[in-house]
């Protein structure tokens, strides 16, 4: 049956308990019959200290409050998801974001799926900093409709002037942020005015009450993409040579006979069938989960994007300008490799620069080098391989992404593509005739990188030096990339913060890669304290081309040796970023080789040389 009303409305509610948010949501749920009778009875019979609700009345705020245990576990600050059934049959999924000042991240989560935001403002207290923050985050995350619910009108005698003044101020901010639709409703959640029934105390207001608005809401004339987008989740293979691509249509629509392009490769095909469990469909629209078959065999794998062919075809790129909401406890590190996850796609990516940090209360952009938890900022991102992404404003699913820490697997940021900066089609690697194999034939051996990691003073340079001497005598072409030496030239612009260390590692790895391609055996002697950075380095190389070698020397021995006087300086408090002192050294979990820096040098060199030569 066709319907013009979106069946499920995703609502985000923002505001704090002080604004009367629990009472508002509780009343909406109770008066739409969306809570079980026994829970309602509980809210009728339970009273908190200081409650002014008369006997027999319902404390609506109790319907949404978490459990005691939950509060102790610290998850009351988390987004809560509830459902509400509207009288016209529409389902509302409420993502309820906590209101506390510092939880921008939770607001962002709740707003990420939101069609409509209800922003609570306390009429008696007026517009506050958090009001601006909530608006900013809603706008950032692409919420198109904001309902300013001016609550506690009963406390200001339902005064029209105060209401209008307040709304004007908020609307100015919303307009600066580019929120397309803003409506304001004066209400009292406590007294039940304009929540699920029209108010009789505010005859000057002739707009809809909240429930009425939510029931009748229709998406704005579309600002988002209506061009077909289909990220492939799963390749379905079945009897009779069946091969189909399963996924959800995230934008636009598709019918058999339509031409699509695999945006990743540029290959085209015609849609043959739209398969579902019951029957084939004549058309699939945004939101439907289907399986598509193509008229001929094309290389398509999980993560690929099927898109409508045509002039506005989305093209792969490997540089993006994006807004990040930083979620991780550890700050963003430039140059560190994260996993970029968008829909079913995942690809290593690096944040190459932070352009500014956004003050979500004032709207100002500040210069910044770092993003900390709950910060929002504009960055440049480089992906390891070109991927087709849309601007977030066109499509949330193909323009939004997560950054995942490669060691802890935590989600550390949510990203929103703002600009596609470099179409990879403009940069086509040239293939040269004299290739790696040709060089192997000439030199008699292939290139390789042995990456020596360990504490300062563990013996990396000494071991590298002696090993190279041994290999050289055997006729092997070698080079040493020594951390300190590289820092006097190529990397002299870098310091010792975690993000600079990540960039240091990245550059050394790239140079090592070039040298290895040229046929050299490269020994890298670099503290490289972070696992994530070393993992990113390894990723540049093919299997067997990279050896992670852990030079394991007790820190006391390193401090005793202290060839560069670093430990002495650190002890004197003059070297806050010293690895093993002020900064942590993350011991390799699965190194290819462990060398003991306290062992006999000859034997150690022998061990390393053998590993390099593959003996």
């Amino acid at each position, binding site marked *: *049956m066709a*319907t013009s*009303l979106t*069946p499920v409305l995703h609502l985000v509610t923002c505001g704090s308990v002080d604004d009367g948010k629990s009472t508002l949501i509780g009343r909406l749920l109770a008066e739409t019959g969306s809570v*079980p*009778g*026994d829970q309602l009875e509980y809210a009728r019979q339970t009273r908190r200290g200081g409650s002014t609700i008369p006997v027999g009345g319902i404390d609506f705020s109790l319907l949404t*409050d*978490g*459990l*005691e*245990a*939950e509060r102790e*576990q610290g*998850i009351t600050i*988390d*987004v*809560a*998801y*509830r459902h509400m059934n509207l009288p*016209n*049959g*529409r*389902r509302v*999924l409420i993502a*309820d974001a906590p209101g506390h000042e510092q939880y921008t*991240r939770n607001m962002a*989560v709740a707003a990420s*799926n939101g069609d409509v935001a209800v922003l609570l403002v306390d009429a008696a207290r007026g517009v506050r900093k958090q009001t601006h923050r909530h608006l900013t985050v809603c706008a950032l995350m692409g919420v198109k409709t904001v309902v300013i619910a001016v609550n506690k009108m009963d406390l200001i005698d339902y005064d029209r002037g105060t209401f209008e003044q307040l709304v004007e101020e908020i609307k100015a901010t919303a307009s600066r942020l580019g929120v397309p639709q803003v409506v304001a409703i004066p209400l009292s959640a406590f007294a039940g005015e304009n929540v699920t029934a029209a108010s009789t105390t505010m005859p000057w207001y002739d707009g809809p009450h909240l429930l009425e608005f939510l029931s009748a809401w229709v998406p704005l004339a579309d600002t988002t993409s209506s061009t077909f987008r289909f990220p492939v*989740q*799963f390749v*379905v*293979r*079945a*009897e009779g040579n069946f091969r189909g691509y*399963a*996924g*959800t249509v*995230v934008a636009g629509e598709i019918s058999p006979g339509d031409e699509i392009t695999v945006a990743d490769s540029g290959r085209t095909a015609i849609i043959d069938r739209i*398969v*579902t469990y019951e029957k084939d469909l004549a058309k699939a629209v945004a939101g*439907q*989960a289907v399986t598509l078959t193509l008229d001929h065999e094309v290389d398509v794998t*999980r993560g690929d994007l099927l898109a409508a062919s045509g002039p506005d075809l989305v093209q792969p790129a490997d540089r993006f300008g994006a807004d990040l909401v930083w979620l991780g406890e550890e700050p963003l590190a430039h140059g560190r490799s994260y*996993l970029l*996850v968008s*829909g*079913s796609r*995942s690809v290593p990516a690096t944040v190459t620069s932070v352009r500014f940090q956004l003050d979500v209360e004032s709207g100002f952009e500040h210069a910044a080098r770092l993003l900390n938890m709950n910060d929002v900022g504009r960055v440049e991102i480089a992906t390891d391989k070109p991927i087709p992404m849309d601007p977030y404003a066109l499509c*949330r*699913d193909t323009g*939004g*992404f*997560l950054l*995942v820490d490669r*060691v802890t*697997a*935590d*989600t550390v940021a*949510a990203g929103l593509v703002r600009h596609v900066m470099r179409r990879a089609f403009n940069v086509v690697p040239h293939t040269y005739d004299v290739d790696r194999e040709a060089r192997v034939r000439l030199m008699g051996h292939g290139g390789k990188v042995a990456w020596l990691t360990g504490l300062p003073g563990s013996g990396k340079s000494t071991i590298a030096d002696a090993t190279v001497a041994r290999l050289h005598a055997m006729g092997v072409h070698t080079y040493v990339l020594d951390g300190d030496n590289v820092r006097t030239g190529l990397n002299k612009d870098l310091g010792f913060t975690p993000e600079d260390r990540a960039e240091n590692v990245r550059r050394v790895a790239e140079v090592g890669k070039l040298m290895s391609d040229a046929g050299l055996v490269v020994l890298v002697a670099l503290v490289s304290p972070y696992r994530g950075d070393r993992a990113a380095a390894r990723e540049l190389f093919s299997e067997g081309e990279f050896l992670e070698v852990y030079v394991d020397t007790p820190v006391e021995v390193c401090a005793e040796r202290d060839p560069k006087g670093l430990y002495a300086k650190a002890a004197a408090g003059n070297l806050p970023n010293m690895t093993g002192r002020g900064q942590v050294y993350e011991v390799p979990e699965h190194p290819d080789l462990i060398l003991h820096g306290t062992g006999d040098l000859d034997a150690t060199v022998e061990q390393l040389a053998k590993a390099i030569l593959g003996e």
Partner: protein
Amino acid sequence: MTELAVPYIAVLDELEAEAIHIYRETAAAFRNPVLLYSIGKDSSVLLHLALKAFAPAPLPFPVMHIDTTWKFREMIEFRDLRAEQLGLDLRIAKNEAAIAEGVSPFTHGTHEYTRLMKTVALREGIDKFGFDAAIGGARRDEERSRAKERIFSLREPGHRWDPRKQRPEFWRTANTTLSEGQSMRVFPLSNWTELDVWRYIEREVIPIPSLYLAKPRPVVERDGVLIMVDDDRFPLREGEQAQMRSVRFRTLGCYPLSGAVESTADTIADLIAEMESSNVSERAGRLIDGEGGSSMESKKAEGYF
């Protein structure tokens, strides 16, 4: 039923599409996922959705039942029948040690019984088969404490649920990466309500155990709860005698722990009508949740689903 501006079918379609999306993501992203099948109505819907998600291919992962050995007899018959009909790769996990010790709902408190026969058995089953993702039928409307549960709910080594490690969920994009020792619980029905489940069963004509529908059954009344005497392991108290009453079950589990409700609803349409008029929390009839104020929370921290 009066014609609504938004027909119920449209809401179900959207919930169905969301669940299918979650299924496909799970099957593709994890090395060795499993569908936890508890034979109840939610599991029946879950299984049906899984068949839909991968059609025309068969289910790409096995199905595991945590058997406490105290399930209703009909449940086990139903399980084996469905497994055969659908050609499922059915794995059964039991806490053999506890069974050997004679642990039963009558010898142990419900909390300890549940911990041993369900929580421990589940953990052992997951470890034994090396599953890295377990798909279950939990819904956010079941209990207030579930309102904050994720769709992809992370478990630390040892199946521990750490609220602080739960990942923020944006759009349809899930971070399914696991670090050493972690595993995932996946809940495709998170946004469904109990009524959605029943309406979907009705619409899709999904087979369910007949225990959900009213029929005269032998029951005894204990502390105001009607318990069905499903087999002769049920120790009748002095003077107690099973009576035939027309009852149905709102949730199915271990028969000595499942409270029956008096009802004459013997079709799904009747059952839905009865539910719409009564409007009582689903877990009210479940005996295991009753012990202690926030026992659901503590069970979850231990690894209960």
